[in-house]
């Protein structure tokens, strides 16, 4: 489903990714771990075409996304939901409006949007908060809203960049369970994290990055 072939990314002379090759199958749950500056966020940004690699080829669903035209990037992004550490919710929109934005951007009809948003907000258990603004929510509720926004369009892949970074351990677990559930529907989840406890408890595939290189790629791996 996702194939990185000898991918490198340099910022000036500094390598962020150095000759990375990996293959992620449909429905996998993959942790990308490693210290700050290891290249985790760069790898995710290449998958959303926020960045182009300096060298190499990246294929998503048999399409080389390094070669697609600018006008096709929105279509790629509709297949890839993104969850951020700082949530990136719009402060002047309610929970419902934030989640609906994904579907509005995709050009869905109003009736369909109402149905899909309601379904997703119930799924992430914040339907009762639908009319509140982000500042009126706790961190966990904001991250659930962000996850709802990422998955409401039924993407093939969900990318989560340090989604538990700003959350207390209990709330973080709630978010992880939610991502786990999303994965159980067949959605591929790729999560960049520093959280050792979560990685070790979930026992999923772990790709370790250090200074832009993959130092370990193990099924049911651990974060050591």
């Amino acid at each position: 489903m996702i194939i990185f072939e000898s991918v490198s990314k340099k910022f000036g002379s500094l390598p962020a990714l150095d000759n990375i090759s990996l293959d992620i199958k449909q429905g996998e749950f993959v942790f990308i771990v490693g210290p700050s500056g290891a290249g985790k966020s760069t790898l995710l940004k290449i998958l959303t075409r926020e960045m182009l690699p300096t060298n190499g080829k990246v294929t998503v669903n048999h399409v080389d996304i390094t070669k697609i035209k600018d006008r096709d990037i929105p279509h790629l992004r509709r297949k890839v939901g993104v969850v951020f550490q700082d949530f990136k919710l719009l402060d002047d929109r309610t929970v419902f409006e934030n989640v609906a934005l994904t579907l509005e951007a995709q050009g869905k009809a109003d009736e369909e949007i109402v149905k899909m948003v309601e379904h997703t907000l119930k799924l992430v258990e914040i339907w009762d908060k639908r009319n509140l603004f982000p500042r009126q929510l706790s961190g966990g509720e904001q991250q659930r809203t962000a996850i709802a926004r990422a998955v409401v369009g039924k993407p093939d892949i969900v990318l989560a960049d340090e989604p538990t970074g700003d959350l207390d351990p209990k709330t973080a677990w709630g978010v992880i369970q939610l991502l786990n559930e999303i994965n159980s529907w067949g959605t591929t989840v790729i999560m960049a994290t520093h959280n050792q406890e979560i990685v070790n408890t979930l026992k999923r595939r772990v790709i370790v990055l250090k200074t832009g290189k993959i130092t370990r790629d193990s099924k049911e791996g651990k974060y050591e």
Partner: protein
Amino acid sequence: MNRSFAFARRNIRRTPFQALAALMIMFLTFLALQVFIILAAGSQAALRYFESKPQVIAFFKEGTTNQDVLAIENALSKETKVTNTKFVSKDEALAIYQEKNKNDPALLELVTANILPVSLEISTKEPQDLAEIAEILKREPVVSDTIVPEDVVQTLTSVTSIIRIVGSITVGFLMIFATLVIVMIIGFKIRLKRNEIEIMRLLGASPSFIRNPFILEGIFYGVAGAALAWSLSYSLLWYFTPFLQGYLGEVGLLPVNFLFMLELLGSSLIAAFIVGSLGSFAAVRRYLKI
């Protein structure tokens, strides 16, 4: 497109002071444009009125007989440049005077037909022939005075020309200024919403989905400003019509033709649409990198 309208409406509603400032600038710009157009059209119509009535009026001395006037009238009718002559008797002169001063009884009481001179109104084919006819009349010993509207035509021609030149320069400057204001306001809003734009991009929004609300917002400021300016200029014109008619009654400019005002509205809206869309397109090109 409906969604773009909804997003544009929300952008405007959530930044009311910026929206008001943009609207006021567009309003003032188009008010100035419409005032200049109304002035130019009015002076042009007045000019046409005077040009269409090239006329010399010769007043005769007291004691001039009808035969004397008839002889002059006959002589003039042989001139190829003269199209028409009209004798105005003392009684007709009084009737004209009474009509012009019907609202001032004090003036009417003092004047009788006897103190008014008889006159002859001579129309020519071309305005430039008026001076020559006036010279012929002045040589007649029975003629006490002549009035030639040539000066009025010349003054009106220069006034119309000045209004056109000053109006074009001012309106041109204001249009450029208005376009730049739209660029500035939309550019500012794009910067203010850069996080939202970034999120929309990552959610898979197409460039047109992101751009259209900003472009519609720019067009709204232009079109709404022009419509408001038209409403005010038409209201003022309508309100002052009775007052202005006292000065321009004979010229027939007022009440202003509604069709002309509709044309003014139509052309203002088109100009506003162009200014709004040009300004917002420029802002989007300059500040919105998708």
